[in-house]
């Protein structure tokens, strides 16, 4: 705190009329395995100071990891001089003090802080656990060879302080325990290589389900064996929870003030309009203690709120920071969707439950393989892999593309299932869409 306070003072002394300082530090320890043996250990200690300066009606953002005073003072002095060369911008200002979060004082209010768990993790524990979790040596399938297995077990502790010259004082600290494993298998008969990945993460050590990851990665790889494209056509499509971020992020990005103000959004002038399926309700719920993604303030220090983004198909909010709000002449909000939550229309039903009742010809997307979308028009095209229902069975598919427009896609929601993974910072369960164009 003292260093951040000192940086504020330095900025004011150098000529800034207002400023915001964010001081971050984190420590990461990681043990990596390759084919059941230790492959790497990593120890990372990061710290950085970011400073946003308002000088003579002008604005600039700066950062450094050289935090000794003899380095910091000239850095900030040069930063102030740089800002003075920019064009004046009357829309730049700090957020009003009454918008600032006042309930993030200790840093652990989000309850994503597990000091006991962190203390229990030693370098030896990381190595021993990563080795114990490996499937190499346990893999048995006469039809396949385990070509390689890579696992990474890590623990991160991070802390961030945000101060501004209007009196904002916000603190956040959290822990994160993560394990991920990727396997590559080879079909002994065809020589085909297939890969599978699975992971888990949690702010709480006791909630990290690491032991199952290798087996699930193998299962996912085996499920993809022998995949081929299905014929080009229109299909019912279920997108698994692991992939849903790819389809939701373009929506929240298009509702962001920067895209709207630059007329680079397919959701311009959408506020209050019913554009999507009645079955689409998307919330922002960052204020849920103890879950991945919980946040009490955004990068301006503005207090987050739980509320609707899209309610029964109707757009309920934009995300507009202080600067863009002034430019657009509207009220500001938090700068972005912090923790999007899709509300299930079929409570208790998972993707595998749906798979057992899915219609013939339905396709389940288990992974995206590249693609992009046009933020101005909402047109998208993505590579996919997954499975298709044929003759009552699920057969693997790959090398297929889905193509369409997000306005139409989200208008065609048939069901939102109830299988979001708690390890994800976004709570996005599997979603079923109707009449999606596939190319194969």
């Amino acid at each position: 705190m003292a260093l951040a306070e000192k940086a504020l003072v330095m900025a004011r002394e150098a000529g800034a009329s207002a400023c915001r300082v964010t001081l971050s530090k984190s420590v990461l320890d990681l043990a990596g395995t390759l084919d059941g043996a230790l492959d790497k250990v990593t120890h990372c200690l990061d710290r950085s100071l970011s400073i946003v300066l308002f000088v003579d009606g002008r604005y600039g953002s700066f950062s450094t990891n050289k935090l000794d005073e003899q380095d910091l003072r000239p850095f900030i002095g040069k930063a102030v001089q740089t800002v003075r060369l920019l064009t004046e911008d009357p829309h730049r200002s700090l957020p009003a003090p009454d918008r600032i979060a006042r309930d993030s004082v200790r840093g652990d209010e989000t309850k994503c802080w597990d000091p006991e768990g962190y203390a229990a993790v030693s370098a030896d524990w990381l190595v021993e656990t990563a080795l114990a979790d490996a499937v190499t040596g346990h893999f048995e399938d006469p039809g396949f060879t385990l070509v390689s297995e890579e696992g990474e077990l890590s623990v991160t502790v991070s802390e961030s302080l945000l101060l501004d010259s209007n009196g904002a004082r916000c603190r956040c600290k959290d822990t994160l325990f993560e394990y991920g494993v990727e396997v590559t298998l080879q079909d002994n008969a065809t020589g085909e290589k297939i890969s599978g990945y699975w992971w888990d993460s949690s702010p709480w050590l006791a909630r990290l389900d690491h032991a199952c990851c290798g087996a699930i990665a193998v299962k996912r790889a085996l499920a993809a064996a022998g995949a081929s494209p299905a014929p080009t056509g229109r299909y019912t499509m279920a997108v698994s929870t692991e992939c849903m971020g790819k389809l939701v992020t373009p929506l929240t990005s298009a509702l962001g003030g920067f895209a709207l103000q630059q007329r680079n959004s397919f959701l311009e002038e959408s506020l209050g309009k019913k554009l999507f399926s009645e079955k689409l309700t998307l919330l922002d719920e960052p204020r849920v203690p103890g879950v991945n993604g919980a946040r009490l303030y955004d990068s301006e220090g503005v207090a987050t709120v739980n509320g609707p983004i899209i309610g029964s198909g109707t757009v309920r909010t934009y995300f507009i920071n202080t600067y863009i709000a002034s430019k657009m002449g509207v009220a500001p909000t938090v700068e972005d969707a912090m923790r999007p939550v899709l509300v299930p229309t079929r409570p208790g039903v998972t993707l595998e439950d749906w798979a057992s009742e899915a219609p013939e010809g339905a396709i389940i997307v288990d992974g995206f393989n590249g693609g992009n979308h046009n933020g101005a028009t909402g047109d998208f095209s993505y590579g996919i892999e997954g499975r298709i229902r044929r003759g009552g069975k699920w057969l693997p598919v790959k090398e297929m593309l889905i193509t369409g427009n997000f306005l139409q896609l989200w208008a065609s929601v048939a069901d939102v299932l109830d299988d979001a993974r708690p390890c994800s910072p976004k709570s996005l369960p599997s979603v079923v869409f109707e009449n999606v164009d596939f190319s194969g």
Partner: protein
Amino acid sequence: MIHDKSHYFNLFSVERPLLEKLVATSLASGGDWCDLFFENTTYGQFSLRDGAVTSGGLHADYGVGIRVLSGEKTGYAYSETTRPEDMMAAARAAAAITRNTVRVGATVTERDVATRRLYSGEPNPAADRYPVRIHWRSCDPSVMVSFLERLETAIRARDTRIVKVMASLAWQVTDVLMFNSLGELKYDTRPLASVSATVIFARGGRRERQTVSKSWRMGVEMLSDSLIAEMAEEAVRGIDALFEAGRPKGGKMPVVMAAGASGILLHEAMGHAFEADFNRKGQSVFSDRMGRQICGKGISILDDATIPACRGSLNYDDEGVPGQKTYMVEDGVLTSYLHDRISARSYGVAPTGNGRRESFRYAPIPRMRATYMDGGAYAPEEILASVREGIYVEQFANGQVKIGEGDFTFFVKSGFLIENGRLTRPVKDINIIGNGPEALADITMVGNDPKVDDGAWTCGKEQSAPVSCGIPTVLVRSLTVGGE
């Protein structure tokens, strides 16, 4: 490039005895290789929005990464200061890899004897691929602000349908000093700058977007009037077609890739699978094909660090190995992977200068630099004329690959249908998917117009790295094209 090593010693507050002591500490408990990577990066950027440069910034990053190898196992730690006590702590953390582990694989000292001559010499560097006339760090920011303002004016002057122009200029200068347990000392200063512009057009109720970017390892001298003219022209080129463009009927069809940026096909479909770490681990689809014919005779693919001022070029890689030109495919035969020191010693070959890292926070891994295909025999018009029904792809956004399976995709921002050998209806925003080895084997015609694209390409394999890509006009017999 600064040729005085004392500049780097002063910058990082080190002397050779301290470097040797750090290496000794790192190896005290039994590792067989250690390298130190000191980095000092200054990064600046300016953004133009709504007709004015109202946002800018400067960022500094400084530290040292310490890597210890025990066989093929890696211990890695870093310090954000170069205080001796902090670096010693990082050295001891990296050395943890040697505790309770059984060493496997060859060691650098066992196998690198034959390769030391490649990177042991003076002067430093052997060749300077990015000489700078006007230095970014000492440049008056008003020069950059003025450039962006003139760029916006030039773009707007070319089309009345423009409703927004967003332009940005980002530059960085990175000083690196490398020292390893062979006693090799290398140092370099790398410039890198990018200019980009996104332009929003409106016609009737519709909007379209064009983005153009240029990037080189050059000094401030790159901010020329000719660059403004070139970018302004590219920013509006093809906008009429974009307003008319639609989605093609999807499915498998011949694809003609335009020269230049189509090199993303090489990067995604083949380049990653040539990176030796994937092959060393048996994951790559090419891991058992060394020495075999993997595509048509006449096709040669290389990865090159030696193109002057190119975004992908390097005097040294991030392990101190000199930048060089590496043929992966010669006349259709797979002849080399892209190696860092770990994979090189595993294969018993010389490193190819592909050990790269995003920053001192990361251990180096095999990465591409500028990847392209040599020119072939056909005129681009001949290639187009040979296609009865297919797609001509011109502008690209991004791509990715699944290494094991070889399945790749890339996103086409704009192109045209080919009907009876002629370009007809414009198409846009489609993804194309295929399998690397199959697509490579399916290249049936290679144009005589090789070109390396100068856009701001960035590869995201575990870490971010600037790269370049290029290709002549080529015909791929069959790829799956997204559509309706």
